[in-house]
């Protein structure tokens, strides 16, 4: 984590914090990295506004992290306000209108935009349109920063075949005071092991009755991969409900 603390410092609670907008980019699991910062903020009894463009916010990871730091996961999770965008038009609407309406106009808010460019990397969206929208979004984030809000952005680079969309990342880079690249180490086989274990087994008194209970994420199988974590999360709590 050491090398990324400069960017996460944008989330520090201080009126003298010189960083207003920080951008983490690269091919590492940036959401996970950002979640360390987000949980820390929530643990300090501050609210965090999370805008998620990659459907990547992982509540179970947050819960696990919170517990690891001796916090009640419910408390930490309830301090996080989240909205997911599945199209770049939704993301633009979220940043340019909804965010401003939601945060307090005078207090300084902590904002995290996860996978901000994901929806803009959609090749169904004309590049010119994407550029125009990212410009508007970047300008709006600049405004919010000027008004004392602190913003952490994560964005991965476009896939091969969409390299011309690199310009979108450049636009974001230009709007941030702190920019860092973080790349993932080579993949290991443990990731695969977790991915095969698709079950979330948990106890919910009335449901157990000799049968295991599992949730399958029919809409999003990737999420079911978090099985291992979820299990750990509830095992530590004895029993509970999701």
């Amino acid at each position, binding site marked *: 984590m050491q090398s990324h603390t400069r960017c996460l410092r944008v989330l520090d609670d201080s009126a003298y914090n010189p960083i207003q907008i920080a951008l983490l980019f690269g091919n590492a699991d940036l959401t996970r990295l950002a979640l360390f910062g987000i949980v820390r903020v929530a643990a300090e009894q501050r609210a965090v*506004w*999370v805008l998620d463009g990659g459907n990547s*916010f992982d*509540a*179970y990871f*947050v*819960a696990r992290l919170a517990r690891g730091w001796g916090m009640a996961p*419910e408390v*930490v*999770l*309830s*301090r*996080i*306000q*989240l*909205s*997911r*965008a*599945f*199209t770049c*038009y*939704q*993301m*633009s*609407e*979220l940043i340019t209108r*909804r965010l401003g309406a*939601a945060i307090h106009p005078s207090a300084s808010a902590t904002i995290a935009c996860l996978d901000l460019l994901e*929806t803009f990397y*959609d*090749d*169904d969206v004309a590049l*010119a*349109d994407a550029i*125009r929208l990212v410009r508007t979004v970047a300008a709006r984030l600049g405004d919010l920063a000027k008004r004392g809000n602190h913003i952490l952005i994560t964005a991965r680079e476009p*896939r*091969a*075949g969409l390299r011309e969309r690199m310009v979108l990342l450049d636009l974001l880079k230009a709007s941030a005071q702190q920019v860092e690249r973080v790349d993932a180490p080579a993949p290991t086989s443990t990731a695969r092991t977790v991915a*095969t274990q698709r*079950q979330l*087994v948990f106890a919910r008194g009335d*449901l157990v*009755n000799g*049968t*295991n*209970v*599992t*949730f*399958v*994420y*029919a*809409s*999003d199988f*990737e*999420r*079911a991969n978090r099985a291992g974590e979820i299990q750990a999360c509830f095992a530590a709590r004895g029993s509970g409900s*999701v």
Partner: protein
Amino acid sequence: MIVWVIDTEGRAHCLRDTFTPAFFVGGDPAELLAVAHFLIDQGWSVKASRTKRTELFSGHSIGVLQVEVTNLNLFTIIFERLTSAKPRLSYYNGDISLPQMYFFARNAFPLAFCHFVLNGDNRILTLEVDDSPWALDYKLPPLKRMVIRLEGDAINPNHGYRAPLVVETEGATRELNGDDPRALLETLRDLLMRHDPDLIVTDWGDSFILPRLLQMSKKYNIPLPFNRDPSRPPQFRPPHSYFSYGRIVYKTASQVLFGRWHIDRHNAFLTDDYGLEGAFEIARLTQIPVQRVVRTSTGTGISAMEIATAYRRGVLVPWHKQEPEAWKSGLDLVRSDKGGLVYQPVLGLHEDVAEIDFVSMYPSIMARLNVSPETVNCKCCPDNRVPEIGYSICKKRRGLVPETVEPLIRKRVEYKKRIREMPDGPEREVYRRRQSAHKWLLVTCFGYLGYKNARFGRIEAHEAVTAYGRECLLRAKEIAESRGLRVLHANVDSVWVAQDRRPLTADRDGSAAVSGQRSVVSDYDALLEEITQVTRIPIALEGIYRWVAFLPSRQDEKMSVANRYIGVFEEGEIKMRGIETRRRDTPPFVVAAQMEMLQVLASAESCKELKTLVPRVIEIACAYADALRSGQVPYQNLVITKRLSRDPMAYSKDTLLAIAAKELLGSGVELSPGESIQYIITEEHAHAKIDRARPFVHYRGQEPYDAEKYVELLLRAVETVLIPLGVDGSQIAEWVKEGTGEAERAQRDLAKKTVESWGPLFEFAERAKVATR
């Protein structure tokens, strides 16, 4: 608009109709005025007028500018120019396809039976539709068919397969000799003109046959009348790969014809399950032209039906989905972001098990409980809450999605009823195919609530549906248990129940410890009725299994997994999920072996009898293993089909798939992520990687295949079938060990195809290869 019509005698007519499509622009009055001025300044032939339409989410009637475009060819161009000149305004109905808009305006649909009044110029004066998409029985026009394909196995010619061109027309099959390109083109031209087909069916016509033939036709200046409409060339779309739900999808090129249809069997969402009958049914219901219907996913279909509902209601269809998710806390997310509920199956073999399924559960929830993007979290109905997640659902406004899916569910139920009541026969098969097509439409209508391209999708509606779904399953389980039944497994919308007793345990020697008596599973009607009454969602008996085996996970034989089971219904029908036979990457040889074994097991009336059949299954396994080891298996049955998950060169580990793909690349074939590759395992552990696997198209049958590797795959399939009977893998391997069959490898069919030149059809392919080399 040009409308092609086939009359009752089967003759095709090209008619013209005057049609003025319109899109809408939203904004404040001053902005709309500026748009009107802009349109005038551009000198486009459009008519702009102020009007009112309904906005979906608020339900309010809003003032919009209606822009009618008189020249159809300019509709898309004008819409694009305007949106890029004034990107900040709201646009509606601008990207609905013109044929669909035409159908909306005329209340018509593809394959509808209509009466026309024409003027002498073949221009439509009146069009009266004497048909309904909801009709259960309807007549299809008499269609003349022509099949164009390559001789032999349907192997992808883009991967190097070479064979002569074959043309099939009613009753006649002709092989076109390719030595003389002119003669080939002229023969084909004559066949097209003489038979004048309504429908051209091809294998690889989109990506290979039609493009090559059209290239040749251009080169030799011999026009091929693929289109009935001579004024336009076929419409070509290049191939591309894209990401969808986190995986890469490859879409091949397409060749769409005017005045007749082209359907490429290898580029069609025509599953064996619903075929052309189903595709026609989807076209009628969705108002999407047939050539597009077969080339797009069924998700597009349901989206089109929603758009039609919106059009009917005067609801604006937003160009871009802008409404983001409402803010929710991390805790709310944990509560709402879940899928279906699953109770892991009780591992092993069970007798007399009933499977009960909610009928189209998610669509039924939407229809019955009014779940739709605009009805979720309404302000006016705080008392009507979704269980577990607490969203409100409107009781005052009928949702757009429920209104769309309800008649579809009804039609499917009606077909299913007829299928149950009818004897086997062609008519029953037609109904079966149509209801199977409905099933696909309904499945995607749920996925589409949350999907990015879903025009009327909204994540909260998706979450509400799954929450209701979990509640329904939970209630069903409780009701079954309260009636003294034992729930063995429940999976999203299905519940497996049996009389309350322990699972059967099997000994190695094949005898079973059966506790309790064989129950006569009497009447489940009361159970079904109570569940339907409590949940308000209909549930039906899928069937009663004589026996069902819930199989363990491949990774851990003590762990049960959902959707991996084998069962035999009382009538003898086999149902299986998650086993080799159902997997796309299982070689046909292994599929045939496993099916044969299952058929033997299906004859067992009870678990006790089942165990006596183990020796027969082993006999079958031995015969298949012998065939493999003696080289008697036709190599076509050994082919393994897998999808490239990335660019072939991006595979860092040399898997068999990567090796085969790289060999294809080396021979000049272009491959894209998402494409399927076929290969044969030649020697899995060969020192030289290239010897480990060969692309199917390069395999001529002379070189050996890796018999022991295929035996391994076979044994795995045997184990799947026998593990619930207490027989494990090492035992099976011992029984099916080498040396039981012929030691010598028999002389195999040598490749029929040793010719090196296949004529001009492939000339361009060869040249392209040379160029890429």
